[in-house]
Each structure stands twice: as structure tokens, then as C-alpha cells.
């Protein structure tokens, strides 16, 4: 696995950060000067030193798109962490059994902006060779395939904030269909005023904590005031079990089920609000695909964005699982520390969910001292860890929901 998150880069530092409840949310002066109502956000602390470890000078010159850079770093890290050979020389043949489904949101926004200025000035000739490969939706998977020599399916999915989780569901399907042995799955997204402006205008971003950034993202709390935008990338190497066992790979977890659906903008669902029946069907679909009972889920890594949607999500989980009060699984929100990383969210949060499953702990869901009373009516407050806890975990579910009324859920099981 590999991760580029606002509070840490790389699996080791990221594990420590989420155990410690470390917030990666900062005040961003540029958003203040551009009159954003929300002036905080999550940007991964990438340095030139880190970049030079992954990219040549030429690649960096030709690859300015932040989201694609994040995706490549997470993808390369995941590849190496899985014990697969790296660097992959140009002379080597493609690995026909290895593919990539890597989702993206607005990963090349800054590059699109500079390109538009050139075109408007009548300088289309000066766009050069690198604009398309950075601005096409599949830019990130295309770059990763070139770096790693992937010869199976190489594509990018997009389903807004459910993108990362959906990418893993799609990779799982590909391997189950026996069409690939290895799928590098994940997602990435960029940051900054051009990516986040539309959300600010919609008044869905948090605007009450500009001078207290670490407290801004408050999933499940009564004082939650909108989501905090974030960015980054997460990546996982999915591999057919026997193939992984044969080469002695580290197995963090088994993906036993996944499901993707849409609420169709019906029954209360809209472009921006989920159809609760759709979500509950998605949860049940994932359980059925995993062939487990609702009681077997030990913990949920929620979508939980720090909006009114949090109450609805907990309600939907409770109804779909038929579990409430102290019988409800543990539930936590990584977004409390890193904000909502949009298209990257599902992949980063899946990495976090698997780390917790593998190491038997749950990270704190920070900024939730004042649990929302409507959530407290459904589940016992002790279901939400406010401090890191050690706990034996066997099955963890990960949910992601996105604009367009789309849903994806994964079920991870500890591999022993």
C-alpha cells in the first residue's frame, strides 16, 4: 500500500499520524486573499526532496499536475511495498497480468488553468507535448502504467467522492473474473482554489474554524459545520491470493466483498444528497457479496464528512445492519484528521482501514467531543473511539458516497 495524505506521506508516518490523531488541516492564506469563506484545507507536505526520489528532472518538468504526482508516489510506494520489482526498466516486457484502475477527480486543474490562458492569448502553439497527458482524466493511470510497465487493463474511474472505493471494487471484480493477477488500485485528487471554489460557493465547506484549522473537520459532532477540503492519494496492490502466496507477498488483508450502486436521484436522492434506500441496498449488497452476516462487522470506516450527512449515514448503517445502541459496530472518521480528500478519499481511507485491521487498533475520531444528539439516539457513544484503542479486528467495512448519488462499499477481512 502507499499513501500521500495531508497529515503524513508513506505508510510508517501515516500509521503513526492516525494513531496519534494528528490533524493535517492548515490555514491557507491564498484562500483568504481570494475571499473564500473556507480558508482551511488539507495539502500533503510534499517536498522537493521527496519529489526527486520518485521523478527525474524531465518528468517533473513535464508533470506539474499535483494530483497525478500524488497518485504516482502512492502507486510506486504500493508497488514496492508489495515486494514487486522497482524500478522497472524500459527494456523489460510489459507485465501482461498486472493492470491499474486509478481514479481521479480534478487532478490536473492547475495545468488546465495555464493552458486556458495560453489558448486565450492566441498561443495554442506553445501548449507543448505535456498538456494532454496531464489533463486527460486517465492521466494518472497512464503515467503509472508507463512507470511500472503494466500490460493489463489500465484505466481511470470517476465517481466523485466515491471514486477511490469504487476503483478498488472494480479491481476486485477484474481479478475475480480471472482477467488479471495483480491490479494496482487507488485514487488521487488535487488541491487549491480552482478545485475547491465550487464547493465554497455551494456553502458546503466549513467556514467557522478558519482560525482553528485542526478543529475544523468534526465528523459526527453537533458542531460540525461543513466539510474541510483535502487532497492526496492512496494506492493498494490487489492480488489473486494464490499468486500472492506463491511469491511470498505481505498480505495486509483479504478483500472479501464490494458493491457499487446509485440511488438514481430518487426517493430523496438528488445530485448532492443520497437516496437512503440506495445506500442501504449498497451496504446489503456488500455484505451479500462478502457472504457475511451483519453481526460480523467489527468496525466501520465511515464516509462521514463533517456535515449533516453524518447523521443520515449512521442511520442508514444502523437500519441496513439491524444493529443499534451498544450492539452497533465501532465507527470512526479519518476525515476528522485529513479533511475530505474528494476523489482521493476512498483510497486513502481504505489504506487507513486496512492498517487498523492489520495492526488491531482503531484511530481516534477527533473533534467529536460533542457527539451529535441524533447520532447518540441511534448508537452508543462508546462506539466512536475518541482516543486510539487496541482492539482485535476481523472484519472492517469502508463506505464512500459521492455527488451524483453514487455509493461504494468494501469489506476487508483480516488474513491469518
Amino acid at each position, binding site marked *: 500500500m502507499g499513501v500521500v495524505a495531508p497529515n503524513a506521506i508513506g505508510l510508517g508516518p501515516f500509521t503513526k499520524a492516525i494513531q496519534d490523531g494528528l490533524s493535517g488541516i492548515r490555514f491557507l492564506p491564498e484562500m483568504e486573499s481570494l475571499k473564500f469563506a473556507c480558508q482551511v484545507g488539507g495539502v500533503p507536505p510534499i517536498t522537493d526532496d521527496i519529489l526527486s526520489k520518485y521523478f*527525474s*528532472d*524531465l518528468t517533473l*518538468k513535464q508533470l506539474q499536475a499535483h494530483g497525478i504526482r500524488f497518485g504516482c508516489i502512492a502507486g510506486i510506494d504500493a508497488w514496492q511495498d508489495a515486494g514487486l520489482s522497482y524500478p522497472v526498466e524500459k527494456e523489460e516486457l510489459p507485465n501482461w497480468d498486472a493492470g491499474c484502475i486509478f481514479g481521479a477527480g480534478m487532478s490536473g486543474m492547475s495545468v488546465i488553468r495555464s493552458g486556458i490562458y495560453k489558448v486565450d492569448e492566441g498561443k495554442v502553439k506553445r501548449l*507543448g*507535448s*505535456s498538456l494532454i497527458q496531464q489533463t486527460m482524466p486517465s492521466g494518472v493511470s497512464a503515467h503509472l502504467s508507463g512507470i511500472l510497465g503494466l500490460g493489463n487493463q489500465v484505466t481511470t474511474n470517476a465517481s466523485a467522492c466515491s471514486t477511490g472505493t469504487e476503483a478498488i471494487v472494480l479491481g476486485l471484480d477484474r481479478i475475480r473474473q480471472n482477467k488479471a493477477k495483480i491490479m494496482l488500485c487507488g485514487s488521487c485528487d488535487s488541491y487549491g482554489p480552482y478545485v475547491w471554489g465550487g464547493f465554497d460557493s455551494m456553502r458546503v465547506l466549513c467556514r467557522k474554524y478558519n482560525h482553528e484549522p485542526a478543529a475544523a473537520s468534526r465528523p459526527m459532532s453537533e458542531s460540525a459545520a461543513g466539510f474541510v477540503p483535502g487532497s492526496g492519494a492512496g494506492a493498494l496492490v490487489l492480488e489473486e491470493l494464490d499468486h500472492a502466496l506463491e511469491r511470498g507477498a505481505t498480505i495486509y488483508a483479504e478483500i472479501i466483498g464490494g458493491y457499487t450502486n446509485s440511488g438514481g436521484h430518487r426517493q430523496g436522492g438528488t445530485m448532492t444528497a443520497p437516496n437512503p434506500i440506495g445506500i442501504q441496498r449498497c451496504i446489503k449488497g456488500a455484505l451479500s457479496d462478502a457472504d457475511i452476516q451483519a453481526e460480523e462487522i467489527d468496525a466501520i470506516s465511515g464516509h462521514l464528512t463533517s456535515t449533516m450527512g453524518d447523521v443520515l449515514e449512521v442511520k442508514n448503517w444502523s437500519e441496513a445492519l439491524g444493529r443499534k445502541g451498544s450492539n452497533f459496530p465501532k465507527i470512526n472518521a479519518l476525515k476528522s484528521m485529513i479533511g475530505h480528500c474528494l476523489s482521493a478519499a476512498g483510497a486513502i481511507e481504505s489504506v487507513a482501514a486496512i492498517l487498523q485491521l492489520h495492526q488491531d487498533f482503531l484511530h481516534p475520531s477527533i473533534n467529536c467531543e460533542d457527539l451529535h444528539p441524533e447520532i447518540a439516539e441511534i448508537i452508543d457513544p462508546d462506539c466512536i473511539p475518541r482516543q486510539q484503542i487496541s482492539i482485535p479486528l476481523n472484519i472492517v467495512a469502508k463506505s464512500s458516497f459521492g455527488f451524483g448519488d453514487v455509493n461504494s462499499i468494501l469489506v476487508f477481512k483480516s488474513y491469518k
Partner: protein
Amino acid sequence: MQEKEIIEKLTAVIKTYVEDKGVLEGITPETHLVNDLNINSAHLVDIILDTEEAFDIEIDDESAEQMLTVKAAVDIVSSKLSA
């Protein structure tokens, strides 16, 4: 501008697009950008753009298509500079 200066400036432009800097050591006027320096042919466009900027010249399409060796590039730049 002296030819030596042109070559120096051009080499600096070309160098950016060479992944394995080792191949630059044996560079001669006949060196082919794609075949000898292993430059990705998509990057020839960028070399032309960077050359235009470095020498403050405009390279027409016909000349651009011929900029495949070091000598061709030097000749094209020289002729544009003296035009």
C-alpha cells in the same frame, strides 16, 4: 552569435529532454535526437518551443520538421538569427 555559442545554448535545451545524460558525452553534429539521444519523439515539439524561447526566434513548420540532428538544429537557428 557565434556557432559555438549557438551549440552551447542548443545543447542546454536538448539536455533537458535526455533521460540518460551519459549519451550526451559523444555528441557530434551528426547526432540524431531521437535515434542517438533516445529523446521521446513527442518531446521534439517541446525542444522546438524551448529553442524559440532561448534564441527569441520563430521556427516555421517546415524547419521544425527538419530539426532532427544537432547540425540541422544549429543551421536552422543560425539562418533564423541572420534573417
